[in-house]
């Protein structure tokens, strides 16, 4: 009866992540945290914000790709993630048109 056989058992998980790789990623994440705290004490002027966000984004990418194993998921999973990210970015960009001109202009 259930006619969606073409989709069943998609979650095959050929990839069986190892302990070691995850620990490595964790070490990288800890190192990046240390880096961002260190950088924060250096005055980079206007770049402070961007550097902090850059490091946070790298960390986020690592968590999403490895810990949340998007890297090993199929194209559908990746594309919906991308779509969500796109909407979020678009909201920020559109919103900036108002903010920058109202508060700083």
């Amino acid at each position: 009866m259930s006619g969606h056989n073409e989709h069943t058992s998609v979650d095959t998980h050929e990839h069986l992540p190892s302990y070691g790789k995850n620990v490595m990623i964790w070490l990288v994440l800890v190192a990046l945290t240390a880096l961002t705290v260190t950088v924060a004490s250096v005055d980079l002027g206007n770049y402070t914000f961007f550097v902090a966000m850059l490091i946070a984004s790298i960390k986020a990418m690592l968590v999403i790709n490895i810990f949340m194993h998007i890297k090993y998921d199929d194209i559908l999973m990746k594309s919906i993630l991308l779509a969500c990210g796109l909407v979020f970015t678009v909201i920020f960009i559109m919103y900036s048109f108002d903010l920058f001109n109202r508060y700083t202009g």
Partner: protein
Amino acid sequence: MSTTSVDAHGHSNNHAGHGYGDNNQLYVHFHRDDYGSKFGMWLFLFTEVLLFGGLFVLYYGYRIAYPHDYHNAAMELNIVMGAVNTLVLLTSSLTMVLSIVALRRKSIKTSLFYLIVTFGFGATFCVNKYFEWSAKIHHGIFPGSMELRETRPAGEVVFFGLYYLMTGLHTFHVIVGMVVMVFCFIFIRTGTINSDKYIVLENAGLYWHLVDLIWIFLFPLFYLLH
């Protein structure tokens, strides 16, 4: 709030029927779609991201409106506390992953151990947060306080308002994640979650990583940018 329901319901079709023990149609309905559950979980995570998104949008708006007040207010937050909490959450993310890896490698004991450790880190985070908040409240910095309303500039009021809202909402998610872990623990013990059917634990893991992910951004935004 409904994470558990996504996990539970996404997975609900493992056992027979739709709740119809019916006489007219003898039909045993096996429908198990692990991929579908995970897909649903990701969609739910998007809604969580967007929920925080509203707050990030506000944070960003007021950051541009009051750059100097933000700067001054951020000085008052304790970097060490923030950094420790970051490490706690990062490590808990790792142990969560390890718990799933262990389960899939059929070592139930190891899996349960890592789950308990993760729960412990979650609790540590909350305790830290408690001390951090009480220190702030002790100094008269909390929403609606006289200190904030009367002596601080508008930007600082907004900054601390957002600080309480965002870390508060985040801590709420940490607690929900811990409750989910308790359920996972029980399910692993009873064998409902096992090395073959581990999607519930995996979804719980996804949720926990999201909590970590949001903190990764909250930490620099509140503690570091000054």
